[in-house]
């Protein structure tokens, strides 16, 4: 202290206490944010809220169907429940949760500081969120002047002519149309953003052939969004013209065609399944290698298979329409195209198994969910091939067998990998690990519930139970199966309860994760958890598909082996 300077005024060495931001300031920061991480989290949170709502609707349906000749809800309410359940799950749970993870993870994986168009990103989120609110506002405002019932009740694919003004008076169907229209605009905006980010924002050395497979799968998905969601948008515009301007697109009285709506809807509807499942594959592609402690097997084959699935899935929509009577030529083509999808999908399953083969597998919660996914996705694919055979479909189309099949895909494959993704990336997003014990409770309860519900749902379908009936007679022999299906729901609810509790509890009490809790290999694990607003202090550069492996094992880098 020899050369100390005389004080010129009072000094205060205690740093000013970091003022706790006001709630209003925090809210303002979230509402106005253009940060890809915050938008991703908002997407995920918004999807979780709708997941609970749509789950409650499913519970109402299962309560009603648990025993024959039940009178818990009226047929009208039941119609609203399955319409809202389906619409919400596809458009306001599936899409936003996948876009949420994509938004959060893709720029981090590519070594970028944000998406290509941050403001478009925020716009897409808010317009999609507004679409969801509009759909649910129908419970209040759908009545119109007609006393015609509230929420939409036309089914999630809203076949014509049921949606015509005569058969759906009031505004409930319009809320459905507008909600989906807005969600579609949001989806196209985000997809455009992700594709541009992937093409333009990769860090030095991140060649296309070195991108993490998850990014590849989002790339394929988003390209599909352009060609699949836009037709739905167009069809919704036509429906609005029919309902409000007196058009005749789907008006059979004036020569319009109800089948055209089916075509337009399923041109969207079938690729949509792949839009939802490809990111789920992406999660599995990241999680399985990390917990098998091996690099993914057959990277180029995986990429090729993904692109192939993307293309083929655009030509199979009419397998939803076998019972329409499209003629033998069209039926054969579509049936064959449907079955050909099994080839690239099979390649993927074999590659995942080969990745696991000889690996030093760590059965943490994300890995458990991925293991169940592999098994369940295989079964879902097999019933898919059964339904893809036109004669078999003639027998079972519109039955509970179909419902069981697509829930096997949507829940057994997609929801399971989404849960895996939650447990895997939660430490990155929050800085804390999720509780493993609670996670295992979640996994086993949900697994039991899933199999009770959806395995046994196939049987009443084969016995002839049609979907969308609000009740059934005592002497049909469907009672016991429906009861088992409904009992499964209890286990699923308990499982999801564990998950939500775990999610909230771990935020406050979870073990501090550090930047790389799983000893993983992709770039998002090289920055802090949670990452700073700018993601990377210095833009990284990569030499191989597993940059963090190279960093941790400089004596034996991947770049020596990759072509």
């Amino acid at each position, binding site marked *: 202290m020899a050369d100390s300077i005389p004080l010129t005024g009072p000094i205060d060495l205690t740093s000013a206490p970091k003022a706790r931001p006001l709630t209003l300031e925090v809210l303002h920061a979230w509402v106005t944010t253009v940060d890809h991480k915050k938008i991703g989290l908002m997407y995920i949170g918004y999807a979780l809220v709708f997941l609970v709502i749509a789950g409650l609707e499913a519970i109402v349906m299962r309560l009603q169907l648990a025993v024959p000749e039940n009178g818990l809800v009226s047929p009208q309410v039941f119609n609203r429940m399955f319409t809202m359940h389906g619409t919400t799950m596809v458009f306001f749970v599936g899409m936003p949760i996948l876009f949420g993870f994509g938004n959060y993870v893709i720029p981090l994986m590519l070594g970028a500081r944000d998406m290509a168009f941050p403001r478009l990103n925020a716009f897409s989120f808010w317009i999609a969120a507004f679409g969801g609110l509009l759909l649910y506002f129908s419970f209040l405002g759908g009545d119109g002047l007609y006393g015609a019932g509230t929420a939409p009740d036309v089914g999630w694919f809203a076949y014509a002519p049921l949606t015509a003004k005569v058969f759906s008076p009031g505004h409930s169907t319009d809320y459905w149309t507008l909600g989906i229209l807005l969600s579609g605009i949001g989806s196209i905006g985000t997809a455009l953003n992700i594709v541009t980010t992937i093409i333009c924002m990769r860090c030095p050395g991140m060649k296309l052939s070195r991108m993490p497979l998850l990014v590849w799968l989002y790339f394929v998905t988003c390209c599909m969004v352009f060609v699949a969601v836009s037709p739905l948008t167009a069809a919704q515009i036509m429906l609005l013209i029919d309902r409000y301007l007196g058009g005749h697109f789907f008006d059979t009285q004036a020569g319009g065609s109800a089948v055209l709506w089916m075509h*337009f809807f399923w041109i969207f509807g079938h690729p949509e399944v792949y839009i939802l499942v490809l990111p789920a594959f992406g999660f599995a592609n990241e999680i399985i290698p990390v917990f098998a402690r091996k690099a993914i097997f057959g990277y180029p084959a995986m990429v090729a298979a993904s692109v192939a699935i993307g293309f083929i899935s655009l030509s199979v929509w009419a397998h939803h329409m076998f019972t329409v009577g499209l003629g033998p030529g069209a039926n054969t083509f579509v049936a064959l195209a449907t079955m050909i999808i099994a080839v690239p999908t099979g390649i993927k399953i074999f590659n995942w198994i080969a990745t696991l083969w000889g690996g030093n597998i760590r059965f943490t919660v994300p890995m458990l969910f991925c293991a169940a996914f592999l098994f369940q996705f295989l079964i879902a694919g097999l019933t898919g091939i059964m339904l893809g055979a036109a004669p078999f479909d003639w027998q079972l189309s519109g039955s509970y067998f179909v419902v069981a099949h697509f829930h096997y895909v949507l829940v057994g494959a997609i929801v399971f990998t989404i849960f895996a993704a939650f447990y895997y990336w939660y430490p990155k997003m929050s800085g804390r690990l999720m509780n493993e014990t609670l996670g295992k409770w979640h996994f086993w309860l949900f697994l039991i519930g899933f199999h009770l519900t959806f395995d046994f749902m196939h049987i009443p379908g084969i016995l002839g139970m049609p979907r969308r009936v609000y009740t059934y007679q005592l002497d049909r022999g469907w009672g016991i199966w429906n009861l088992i299906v409904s009992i499964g729901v209890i286990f699923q609810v308990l499982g999801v309860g564990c998950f939500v509790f775990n999610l909230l509890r771990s935020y406050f009490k979870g073990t501090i994760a550090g930047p790389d809790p799983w000893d993983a290999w992709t770039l998002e694990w090289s920055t802090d958890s949670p990452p700073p607003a700018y993601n990377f202090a210095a833009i990284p550069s990569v030499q191989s598909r597993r940059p963090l492996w190279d960093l941790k094992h400089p004596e034996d880098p991947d770049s020596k082996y990759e072509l």
Partner: protein
Amino acid sequence: MVGILCLIAAESAVFIIFVVAYIFYLGKSISGPSPRDVLDIPIVGTICLLSSSLTVYLAVGALRKSKVGLCSLWLAATVLLGGVFLAGTALEWRQLIYKDGFTIRTNLFGTTFYSLVGLHATHVVVGLVMLALALVFALRGRLTEANAERLDVLSLYWHFVDAVWVVVFTVVYVLGR
């Protein structure tokens, strides 16, 4: 640039659906009038719209070379040509609605015709608004060479709108008649 190409891909899908609906419903109307009865080929409008592609291309080229004056001239020409096209459509619709009494409700042809041509006209309006905005910026001296990339993106959109017109024109006024 990648972004606008993606948008064009998505928009193309929308137009394809409307064109498919138009073709699918050709001749399926239960009552008249049919396209041959009421439609005239809009030669002037088409020539104007297609040549506006050339002028917007020249505008971008001029801006690249920092010739802002030339650029605003070409932009003005583009807006003018687009406006003539739009006026042509407006007159056509006025003729159809008020003289022929042919509306979107009349028959399937009306429904598909007004929605397809209307969808395209909507895109023309959006393009014109943006081009006019660029023109205003240019006239007030706010458009510089640094903005050439953005104007290029806008011009891509405009070329797309023109290309769609080629399809719509062929389907509605040539093959559909």
